[in-house]
């Protein structure tokens, strides 16, 4: 007995639809990652700009200003420079 050919029922392919649905969150995720990276870089650069000048300075790079009032021994192993505002 000849088999009756199975009628093909047109079905909606779900895959393309599914990938389209997940595309939007993926784009957002990418945007978030890029945005986060940009923000992190900006904060890092800002922090460096603020922090770098505040770092230690070797005495040879400090330079000097002539004639100042001092206490203690000239040529001592440790020189303390004090910047004070009277007000």
């Amino acid at each position, binding site marked *: 007995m000849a088999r009756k050919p199975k009628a093909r029922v047109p079905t909606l392919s779900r895959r393309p639809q599914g990938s389209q649905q997940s595309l939007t969150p993926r784009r957002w995720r990418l945007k978030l990652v890029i945005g986060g990276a940009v923000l992190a870089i900006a904060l890092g650069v800002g922090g460096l700009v603020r922090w770098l*000048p*505040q*770092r*230690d*300075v*070797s*005495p040879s790079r*400090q*330079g000097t*200003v002539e*004639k*100042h*009032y*001092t*206490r*203690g*021994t*000239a*040529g*001592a*192993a*440790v*020189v*303390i*420079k*004090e*910047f*004070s*505002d*009277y*007000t």
Partner: protein
Amino acid sequence: MQQFEGKVQLVLYPIAFRPKGEEVAQAAWCAGEQGKFWEFHDMLFRRWGLWNNLDAPLQRLLDFARDLNLDVTALKSCVESERMQSRVEADRAYAQQLQVNSTPTLFINANRVVGVQGEGDLVRLIRQELDRVQRPGQ
């Protein structure tokens, strides 16, 4: 700080970030002309509460100067002539060069110390630096 005698030198930079501070810093320099910079400096801090709130503290500072047996007329004339202005400006420029944005700021050799420190902390920092520079092979 007497425990570090012979090992430590303090160099003072009176910084004036505010206009009123300029006159006071100049007065300190002028007292120095009469050989009493440190006495005047110490007195400014000791009696800080007595002059700091005044808009024009010069007269009060002159009263203090009298207590230190300074020539008050000479001191007043020195401040009013503003001949110490260049020194105050030089110190301010130096502070800016070293990125000193607030006071007190100390440099213990290379080490920057910002803000008020307790005596114990300062002693510890100085000891650390002395140990470092006096270590053999350094």
